[in-house]
Structure formats: structure tokens, C-alpha cells
């Protein structure tokens, strides 16, 4: 593994950890607000996963991971929008 890839993996891992901490963080806000907070964290985690997959594809030269990244980009967007819509309308 080249130094650049290692450094990038390292930075992304820390980023993932921080996003995860935000995801599990308890808050004394009402339920819907703290859920929205988590949606933001999840959205970030999806973006980070796309980054991971790209890096992994670069590292191992397995191009299948790029396809997976395409699909994840599509699905993460749908998920975020659905969550936001549900939290706005549903009660």
C-alpha cells in the first residue's frame, strides 16, 4: 500500500469514527429533531463510504467497487430524501 493510500484511508477512518460518534450521541431534544441529526450523520457516512469504496477500488484495482459506489450514491440520496420527507410530514 502506497503512503498516499494509507494516509487517505487513515483520514477517512477517523472521519468515519467521528460521524459514528455523532450518530450514537444522545441528546435531550425531542425525538424527531434528534432523528434528523442522525439523518445528517448517516448522510455523511454514506458519502464517506463512497470515498472508501473509491479508495479501495484504486488500491486493489478491483473496479467492481466503483459500480458499488455508483449504486450507493443513488440509494443514499433516496434514503436521505425519504427520511426528511417522512419526518416533515409524518406525525
Amino acid at each position: 500500500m502506497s503512503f498516499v493510500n494509507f494516509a487517505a484511508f487513515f483520514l477517512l477512518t477517523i472521519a468515519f469514527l467521528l460521524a459514528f460518534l455523532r450518530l450514537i450521541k444522545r441528546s435531550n431534544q425531542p425525538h424527531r429533531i434528534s432523528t434528523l441529526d442522525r439523518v445528517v450523520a448517516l448522510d455523511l457516512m454514506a458519502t464517506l463510504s463512497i470515498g472508501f469504496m473509491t479508495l479501495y477500488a484504486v488500491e486493489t484495482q478491483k473496479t467492481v467497487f466503483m459500480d458499488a459506489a455508483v449504486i450507493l450514491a443513488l440509494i443514499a440520496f433516496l434514503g436521505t430524501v425519504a427520511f426528511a420527507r417522512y419526518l416533515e410530514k409524518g406525525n
Partner: protein
Amino acid sequence: MLADIFILIGAFFMLVAAIGVYRMPDLYMRLHTNTKSATFGVGFLLLGAAFRFQNLDISARALAIMIFLFVTAPVAAHMIGRAAYFVGAPLWKGTLSDDLKGRYDPKTHELMSKSKTRKTGDKPTK
């Protein structure tokens, strides 16, 4: 070489986004870092990957993801921001002014363009 620099910049900005999401004081500002830094970071990462792969198909795919993310990130942020205002996510205590206050109709989810107290005839200031 160029690809390496792009990948490092991308990873750095994604870390910045994560730090921002972790430590920004309110939901709206977390959205700021999430839409800007994270998208920018992953964009650079994909650009680096597109340069690294000596294969046109894969590079095209990386560029497609990039464009898709740049189109969808603001839409997602808009949806979350709107929902956040509806469910009443608190603004940070340092927020100076809030023009949205009282302009949503809680039943129909309609949004007025100006407050009810002002006359409807006057033009908004430019």
C-alpha cells in the same frame, strides 16, 4: 502525482466535514459542512481515482458519481433543512436573525414570502 494530491485533498476535506458534523453547534451548520466539505472532498477523491485508473470506462464512472453527488447534495440539504425547520430544530444561540420565523403554515406546509404584519402591496427590498 496529480492523482495522489487530489486523493489526499479529498480525504482531508472529508475529515473536515466529519469534524464539522461532530462539533458544529446546530443542525443547520452541520448541514453546511455536510453539503459543502463532504461533497467537495469526495469529488476530489473521485477525480484522483479517475486519474489513477488508466481505464476510460472506470474514469467515466468516477466522473458520473461526482456529477451525481454535486447535483443531489444541495437537494438533500434542502429537504433536511426544511424538515428541520418544521420539526422545530433549535437554532444556535448566536443566531442573529431568523426571517423564516412564523412564515410557515403548519397545516398546509405552505410558505409565505413575507410576514403577515407587513402590507402585501409593498415590494421586497432589493
